[in-house]
Structure formats: structure tokens, C-alpha cells
């Protein structure tokens, strides 16, 4: 029986000719990732192991992005533990405030992940690098510790759901709407333990940023990973950003899938996920009359330059509704500067938004825009569980940058097509 794209990558990294779903394999890792929230625990477990040093100081990336710039004294102490460890172990890819960005936007930009890599990260959105045709998945701090020591990790080989994307989305529908639509269809555990393998002629109409957004949210359907084929869009990106050679894997024609789901991209509507699950979706056209207090445009899901340009398209020559807080967070320093030089900051600030340094901040209820009881936000982030962005009695509605920006202008969940 043929293998899926994911299975092929795992087989190669386990030194096996072939693997099948359900099998346990031990894989060599190309990159291991931790952040300021997950690394301290990993460091403490690592130290308990009594090994001399990390397996390869060039294959570990540590990115303090969740509660940085240091949110409070406790966060500062966590960051110090991480910084000191990175220094002691001479970790090549430790990114201090000033160099860092949101980890899942930063690593591809820095060329640290390329097609065909196997990457684990102590962060659930590590699945983002599937956009580049890599196998990447989230793990906890103990797995991070073991991986830093050994450079290996065990996996149970996943089966896959194949998504056949057809046609082109109709502007202003974006990758965010497509993935929210898909999660709404299959549910937050619809892809539990499986790979989400995206295929079809529709892929050609998706930018690399669309694909980062979609792969990023594979975890929100319970998936082990989300993965895209390696086409010229991906190869161009990898060539531009990395000196590492990509490895291109393709699913076998006779690979078997648990489900095959066709998605006509032209039929996907602007989509919003209501509280308190990412699968609680409906078309924006059915989201009338929901008044909001805050908008967040950013995160590992939608903090890329394309996302900021889309928001700027909406904000240009407009003002946000008085009283709305609109917080825009470019995901990396490079994106920050690019947006600035393109004049997007003038548009954002001119419209009444604020622009923040890269940070995960409000996405997980950390800092830089927390909600009080009874407040509502439209956010381009990835989760809207109870208390996700602050008080347990606050609400988060997930949407695309176009929709988030339009909502900031009116003060209600709004489609950009409904603005004058």
C-alpha cells in the first residue's frame, strides 16, 4: 500500500523503507523548538537527565515570544532561566527580544525549516511548517527535554484525511476563511491523531501566507499535522529564505486515506468562529449585530505581511469606531519593518489602531490587550476557548484580517464588502 506524504517523511527519518498508520517509529529530528512558557519546564527536566549537553546546538531554536517583552516579574524570571540555558549550551538559534518574532513566523523566515524536515516544538501551533511540506507537530516540555538531549523522538504513524481544494477563493475570502470553514465542517476533533493533507488545483491560488495560516490551525481540528505539497510557491520561499536544501516528498498515488473531502474554494464564505470553540463557525453574513470592544490582528496564524496588507486595505481612508481598541501585531521584526516601509503603519495609526512589537501577547490571554468580563474581541488568532483572551466571561470571535479590520471600523462583526 502506498504512503501518504507525512508517512513518507516519517519513514525516511526513521530509517525505514516504509511505514503504515498505527506503527510506532523513532525519528531523527531536524529541528527542536521551545518558547519562554514551555522551555523552563523542559530545562528542568533536561537537567535531571544528567546529560552533558544538547544533542546539536545548531538544531535547537529557542524563541521567547509568549510573555515578552517580559510581562511581569515571574515572566522575567522564566525568560532568564531560558536565556541562561541558551547561553550555557551555546544554542545558535536563541532569539532575544529585538531579534525574536512569533516563533512559527520566525523559523521559516530565518530559513530554519525547509521542505521535508521533521520538526517538533513545545507549542501546539508547531504544525505551521506543514505549509512548507515539512512534518512538524507540537509536543510538551518533557518531550522537548528528551529531544534536546537525544535529537530523536517517537511517533505513532498517523493515518490521513485528504482535502482536495478546487478552484479559487473569491476575494476577500482568504486562507483563514478556508481553514475555519474546514474546521467548522469536521469539528475540533474531526482530524484527531491524523494528518490533514491538502491537495488539489486550488493550492495554486493560495499564497504562502495563506498556507501558513491553514497549516497553523490543523491542531484546532485535533490533527497531528497539516501539510501542503511542495510546489514552486514553496520552493521559491525556501530558496529565498534558507541555505538548507529542501527535500520534496509526494504522497503515493495508491496511498489510502481515512476520508477524502473536496472543498470548492469559490463556495467558501467569509467565516467567523463564535465562542467558545474554533468549530463554532458560521458565515460572516449570518453574524449580524454582534457588538465588539476590541480587535486583534496578528499572531502566528495571521501576523504575516499579507495579513497586514489586507487589514490596511480596509483601514485606508477610514477610521475605526470610537471606543474600539484595534491592536495590530506584526509577527517578526522583518515583517514589522516591511509593513512600516510600505506605509501600513501610517494607515493603521491614522485609522486609530495601535501597532505592537512582535509578541503572542493577547492571543493566549498573556498581555498587550486582555479582555474584561463581558467584553468581546474579533481576533485573527487561532483559539477562542473560555478565558482565552482574558476574563472567563469575555468572548473571542475568530476571523480573517479583512473581517477583523472591517469589524473595527463598524464596532460589529462585519464583512469588508459591507463597508462604504
Amino acid at each position, binding site marked *: 500500500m502506498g504512503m501518504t506524504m507525512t508517512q513518507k517523511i516519517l519513514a525516511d527519518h526513521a530509517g525505514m523503507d516504509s511505514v503504515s498508520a498505527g506503527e510506532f517509529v523513532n525519528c531523527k529530528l531536524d529541528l527542536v523548538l521551545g518558547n519562554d*512558557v514551555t522551555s523552563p519546564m523542559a530545562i528542568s527536566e533536561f537537567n535531571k537527565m544528567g546529560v552533558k549537553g544538547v544533542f546539536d546546538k545548531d538544531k535547537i531554536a529557542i524563541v521567547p515570544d509568549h510573555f515578552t517583552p517580559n510581562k511581569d516579574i515571574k515572566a522575567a524570571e522564566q525568560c532568564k532561566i531560558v536565556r541562561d540555558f541558551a547561553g550555557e549550551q551555546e544554542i545558535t538559534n536563541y532569539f532575544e527580544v529585538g531579534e525574536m518574532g512569533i516563533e512559527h513566523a520566525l523559523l521559516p523566515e530565518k530559513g530554519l525549516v525547509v521542505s521535508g524536515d521533521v520538526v517538533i516544538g513545545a507549542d501546539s501551533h508547531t504544525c505551521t511548517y506543514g505549509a512548507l511540506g515539512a512534518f512538524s507537530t*507540537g509536543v510538551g516540555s518533557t518531550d522537548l527535554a528528551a529531544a534536546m538531549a537525544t535529537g530523536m523522538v517517537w511517533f505513532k504513524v498517523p493515518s490521513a484525511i485528504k482535502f482536495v481544494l478546487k478552484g479559487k477563493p473569491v476575494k476577500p475570502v482568504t486562507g483563514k476563511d478556508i481553514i475555519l470553514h474546514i474546521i467548522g465542517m469536521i469539528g475540533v476533533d474531526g482530524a*484527531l491523531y491524523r494528518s490533514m493533507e491538502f491537495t488539489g488545483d486550488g493550492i495554486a491560488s493560495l499564497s504562502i501566507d495563506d498556507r501558513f495560516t491553514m497549516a497553523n490551525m490543523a491542531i484546532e481540528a*485535533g490533527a497531528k499535522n497539516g501539510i501542503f505539497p511542495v510546489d514552486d510557491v514553496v520552493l521559491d520561499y525556501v530558496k529565498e529564505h534558507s541555505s538548507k536544501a529542501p527535500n520534496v516528498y509526494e504522497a503515493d498515488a495508491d496511498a489510502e486515506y481515512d476520508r477524502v473531502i473536496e472543498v470548492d474554494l469559490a463556495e467558501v464564505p467569509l467565516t467567523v468562529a463564535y465562542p467558545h470553540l474554533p468549530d463554532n463557525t458560521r458565515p460572516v453574513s449570518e453574524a449580524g449585530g454582534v457588538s465588539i470592544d476590541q480587535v486583534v490582528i496578528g499572531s502566528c496564524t495571521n501576523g504575516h505581511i499579507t495579513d497586514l496588507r489586507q487589514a490596511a486595505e480596509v483601514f485606508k481612508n477610514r477610521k475605526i469606531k470610537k471606543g474600539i481598541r484595534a491592536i495590530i501585531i506584526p509577527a517578526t521584526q522583518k515583517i514589522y519593518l516591511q509593513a512600516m516601509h510600505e506605509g501600513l503603519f501610517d494607515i493603521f495609526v491614522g485609522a486609530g489602531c495601535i501597532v505592537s512589537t512582535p509578541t503572542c501577547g493577547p492571543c493566549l490571554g498573556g498581555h498587550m490587550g486582555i479582555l474584561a468580563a463581558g467584553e468581546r474581541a474579533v481576533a485573527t488568532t487561532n483559539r477562542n476557548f*473560555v*478565558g482565552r483572551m482574558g476574563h472567563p466571561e469575555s468572548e473571542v470571535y475568530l476571523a480573517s484580517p479583512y473581517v477583523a479590520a472591517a469589524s473595527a471600523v463598524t464596532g460589529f462583526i462585519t464583512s469588508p464588502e459591507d463597508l462604504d
Partner: protein
Amino acid sequence: MKTNGKVYKYGNHVDTDVIIPARFLNTSDPGELASHCMEDIDKEYIKTVEKGDVIVGGENFGCGSSREHAPIAIKVSGAGCVIAKSFARIFFRNSINIGLPILECSEAVDGLEAGDKVEVDFSTGEIKNLTKNTVYKAQPFPDFLQRIIQADGLINYAKATREGK
């Protein structure tokens, strides 16, 4: 490996944000984390939980973040095990890695109610509802996963294995 206590019953998709909200993630201290366990879904949990009690959830327990702080908060709060219809994969892995016993058993989830007294034998997978006098059977984990949990987590297990124990 057994546990004995009362049931705390929750629904589907109990996520990591309600198990341990992010506002408490600026610490790795297990005791501190435990003191906020389940805070955003059940404020009474931490006030009433006793050692050996059992948390029962529906589908997709532990969905959301990879934060290992979640199973740690549950374990250190005193809960003896979590029984659910299905677990989110990162939470599943993390629980084994830190030595929190977990079992998948739809039957038990349907039959157990909040407050029921229950006894769970992790090695056989037997779940006895002492209040209702019923027994449910879960598939026990393979030997090596049980040994990791018995050793109190992956790191301890790895050390013991290296030392030839």
C-alpha cells in the same frame, strides 16, 4: 496501580485553557499551577478535591495547547486519574510523560456521575463504580507505557532504564 475517590464530571472538549489558564503560565511551580487547576470551568474543584479523586470528561479531553502545565496541575491537585471517551493527542502524550494515569472508556464516562465513588485499577483497566455497583472495562495501556507512568514519568523512567533498573 490503583486510585480511589469521588468523580468530577465534565463535558466534551475540556481544553487546556480551562484546565490551567494562561495567566498562570508565568510559573513552572507545580504547587502553584495545581492551586488554579480547572479554575475557569469549575471554581469548586480545587477547594474540594481529595487525593485519589477521578476527573471524568467526554470527547477530546485536554484539547488545545501543548502546555504540560495542564496534566501537571491535574496530577499535583491530587486527582488519581482522568477517564475520558477520547484524549487530545498532545495532552495524552504529556500525561504519560509526567506520570498522570489516563484511561479511555466511553462506557465508564456514560455511567459515571459527579460525586460517584469510584475505584480504578490502571493495570487491568477495571473501573468500579462503588456508588452504583457497576464495573466498566477500559483497554489498559501497553506494558511500556504503564511502566513510564509507574516510574512517575518519562525522565525518571529513562534514568531508571539507563541505570539498569
